[in-house]
């Protein structure tokens, strides 16, 4: 008599006259448990062991402990893993990588708080980048509020960061993006706004004036039948 059947019988595990088999269900249960684990405990993206293989064991352990800590409950840890992979492949030292990860995580956290659960990792990263450029949260919130669709939000955040990088003050950049949203510009148009501003800057305009010039000359949306939007009539050029 095998040990297994002894155990089953000793627990009185008989049903319909047959001993209850426990074989095989452990593995299936394990698979289900693994699948049911929350995403933060199983970071997606590059393999963590592979990413950290270039670091000495003690430093790799510190990095792993940072990435897998319970603090990241609900946090898109795949972004942390990607950033770690980036730092590792670029040969960044562990202590510097840890500091950079901490700062990056803090920005992603702020972006997450502003955008809420609706945000994809792409829009989160774009928003975190904007926050890292020193754009006030109120500006980020306003731009996010007028872009409920995630791809529009991402385009606007990328453009916002780019405009600020070009020297446009955040509130001017915000106005430009609000105008674009009001005029229902598509993603390509929004992403093209910083290039337009840079063209005016190359002409000798100050960034603020360049942004104002782009707003003034901004295209107006057309209705499907080719008519102008009645609520967004083109402004008249000044008579000088």
């Amino acid at each position, binding site marked *: 008599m095998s040990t297994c059947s002894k155990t089953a019988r000793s627990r009185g595990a008989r049903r319909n006259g047959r001993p209850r088999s426990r074989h095989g269900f452990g593995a299936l249960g394990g698979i289900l448990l693994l699948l049911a684990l929350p995403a933060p405990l199983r970071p997606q993206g590059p393999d963590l062991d592979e990413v950290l293989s270039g670091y000495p064991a003690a430093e790799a352990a510190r990095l792993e402990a940072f990435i897998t800590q319970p603090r990241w409950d609900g946090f898109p840890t795949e972004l942390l893993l990607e950033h770690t992979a980036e730092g590792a492949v670029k040969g960044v030292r562990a202590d510097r990588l840890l500091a950079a990860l901490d700062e990056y995580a803090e920005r992603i956290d702020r972006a997450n708080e502003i955008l809420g659960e609706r945000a994809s990792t792409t829009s989160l990263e*774009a928003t975190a980048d904007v926050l890292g450029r020193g754009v006030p949260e109120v500006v980020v919130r306003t731009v996010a509020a007028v872009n409920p669709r995630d791809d529009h939000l991402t385009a606007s955040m990328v453009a916002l960061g780019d405009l600020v990088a070009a020297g446009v003050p955040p509130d001017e950049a915000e106005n430009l993006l609000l105008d674009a949203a009001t005029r229902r510009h598509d993603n390509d148009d929004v992403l093209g706004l910083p290039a337009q501003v840079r063209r005016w800057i190359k002409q000798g305009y100050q960034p603020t004036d360049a942004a104002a010039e782009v707003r003034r000359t901004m295209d107006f949306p057309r209705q499907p039948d080719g008519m102008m939007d009645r609520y967004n009539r083109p402004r008249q050029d000044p008579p000088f």
Partner: protein
Amino acid sequence: MHEDVQRYLDGELTVEELPDQLRAEATAWEALLEDVRMTAVSGAPAWLEPRVLKAVEVASVPAWRRGLRWLMQPRTIRVAPAPAFAALAVLALAIALPWTGGLSGSGSPDDATVYVQLFLEAPSASSVAIAGDFNSWAPFELEDADGDGVWSARLAVNPGVYEYMFVLDGSRWVTDPHAERYSDDGFGNRNAVLAILPEGSRT
């Protein structure tokens, strides 16, 4: 009944063809059948059929209601544990897979792949690779087929926002000078940023 009597009743034999000893029996059977014929009911009364049909129509239930009744009826379903676990595992995989794979920053499942041609002029380099969050920062070699010092690669990416850098000779990290936008990588370098978003009109 004798076989010949049966044949007589079926009209296959005449009474003259029957043996004498069977004629009386045949005549008796014939008389009996005639009696039955005379007393049989010719058919149902005319009023009965429409009345029955009407009753049947009232009693019939539409298919959708029968289906709903079937769905709402409590039932005992007997399932063996192993197939049930397997079905659950497949279901869990189907739910989990779309969120686990793909490129970082990829968008909705209906995103179309976009091909991007990237190039770098580096005549003195013996190898040029590109690494970014589209390939989890695993360097991918560029080609300089004609040896003119211009290295290029064609990448297939889903719409998204990607950061990348070039790697010269396996160790020197270089920012793409032709990028439209850049981002601080947090490690003292500047990543080039590639923003490819779906055509998202706001109509």
